[in-house]
């Protein structure tokens, strides 16, 4: 009889706990990228920045994907907040919306620069104009561009354009931002994106030596490696 009571009590507690988990509070977070170049606000279409290689340059186009957002708990457990891929356009000021974010204290967040392999197949993202505009031809491996970063730079011979395009599953970068934050209400977070970091650290990209990356795997991998240092969490929820 005593065993039965204990069993019933345990079952009740388990049920209650399970019930509590199901009712866990969930929130919506808006993520706004903040574009800057070593602290200078991004102003499009004007040669006014200088990269680590010393190239004065402008930014005329910056389109890219962030995906697979995860929040890291203090026990290192990663809560997948949103496994999808978000198209983002700096010119349009695109923001991202993360739904059903669980409440909690987190010691950082992780996300991918690029598109996970299962989604990086033409047709696996919704056929919006934005996604279709990022298609990477089947003949070159298929999927989508992870990033189109384009503009002009002052070269020894005058002004030239650059087009840093990155794609291919090998170039997916897993980004970690180790800044703690709490989620206890709907809110917003600002992720800083330093564009000079695309072109430096650890790999310095000299536009005079190459102004184009698509299909050039070593160059794309170098850019992908640089992305690890490009993002910061500027405003917590």
């Amino acid at each position, binding site marked *: 009889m005593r065993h039965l009571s204990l069993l019933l009590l345990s079952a009740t507690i388990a049920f209650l706990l399970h019930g509590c988990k199901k009712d866990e509070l969930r929130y919506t977070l808006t993520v706004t990228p903040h574009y800057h170049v070593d602290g200078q606000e991004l102003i499009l279409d004007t040669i006014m920045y200088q990269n680590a290689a010393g190239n004065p340059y402008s930014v005329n186009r910056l389109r890219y994907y962030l995906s697979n957002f995860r929040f890291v708990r203090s026990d290192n457990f990663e809560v997948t907040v949103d496994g999808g891929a978000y198209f983002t356009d700096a010119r349009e000021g695109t923001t991202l919306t993360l739904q059903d974010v669980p409440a909690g204290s987190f010691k950082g967040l992780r996300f991918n620069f690029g598109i996970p392999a299962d989604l990086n197949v*033409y047709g696996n993202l919704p056929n919006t*104009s934005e996604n*279709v*505009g990022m298609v990477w031809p089947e*003949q070159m491996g298929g999927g989508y561009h992870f990033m189109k970063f384009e503009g002009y730079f002052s070269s020894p011979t005058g002004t*030239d354009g*650059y087009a840093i395009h990155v794609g291919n599953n090998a170039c997916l970068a897993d980004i970690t931002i180790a800044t703690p934050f709490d989620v206890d209400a709907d809110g917003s977070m600002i992720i800083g994106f330093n564009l000079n970091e695309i072109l430096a650290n650890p790999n310095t990209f000299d536009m005079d030596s190459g*102004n*184009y990356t698509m*299909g050039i795997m070593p160059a794309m991998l170098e850019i992908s490696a640089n992305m690890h240092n490009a993002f910061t969490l500027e405003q917590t929820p």
Partner: protein
Amino acid sequence: MKSFRWIILLLLSFAFTSCEKEENLCEANAHPFQLDFPDYFPILNVPNDNPLTEEGIQLGRRLYYDPLLSIGGPNDGLSCSSCHFQSNSFSVPTPPQNSSVLPHVNLGWNHNFLWNGKVTGTLEDIMMFEVQEFFEVDLDVLKNHGTYPELFKDAFGSCELTDELVAKALAQWFRRMKSSNSKFDRYQQGLEQLSNEELHGMTVFFTEKGDCFHCHGLPLFTNNEFHNIGLDSIYDPAVKDRSYITGSPYDRLKFKAPTLRNVELTAPYMHDGRFATLEEVVEHYNSGVLRSTTIDPIMTKPGKEYGLQLTQQEKNDLVAFLKALTDWEFVNDTVLSSPF
């Protein structure tokens, strides 16, 4: 006093009935139209306040082919179809000197219109421009016409004929002008095989070899943006390029990338019609690119600084592939031809 109340009630009931009757006079008689296109096409953006209907499309079609649209305006006597022939994918083979006419095909998926993007937004926006600025449509002509008021009423449920409704009808018609049945489309759907020449040309097109895909990518064969492809090296302020609209020196010598669907039917080519054949166009990319400060980096990337350097066979194959983008059904479809 009692009979006075009855009179009031009678008057009120008459007033309500007559209101209702007047509304009925302007009731729409529009039936939804479902536009079919392959699943690899982008989602078609249709404004909530201008859904596709059979009646709206037919009204737009009629307006497109009717010179009545321009009566009294700067283009008096012309209709849209005067410069946009169906047999040429709704472009014209003999445009005025130093110009060319962009084809009216798949514009429902566009958001930049005209060679320099003078109008951006939706089809309703560009049609408003056509109605108010290009044709300067005289609404009285339409209002006093024997047929149009009834057609507008059926399509939009409005007895008030406005510029906005003319633009909306035309926008519906332009969405209907969809081309997605070329040999290439049938190949994409596994319904038809491309020839070896076309397949090889497709590889040139979609790889760094030709690098056509960045501006003319799948499935619309335009990225709907503006590029300097090295046609000229010196900026001429008299030429109304993209910088004429934006004022930015970085937009000099840039023009909209046109769709390559049905491109074999849309000569002459480039914004000024300088090339008469597809072979000339390919040769430009192969060896004729001129450098300037705003040239697209894709045109001068490492290894291609002096053009694509294709072999004669590759050039032939590329042209063969471009011709596989022709949708003969589209240019012969009587549903898209003149209703008159």
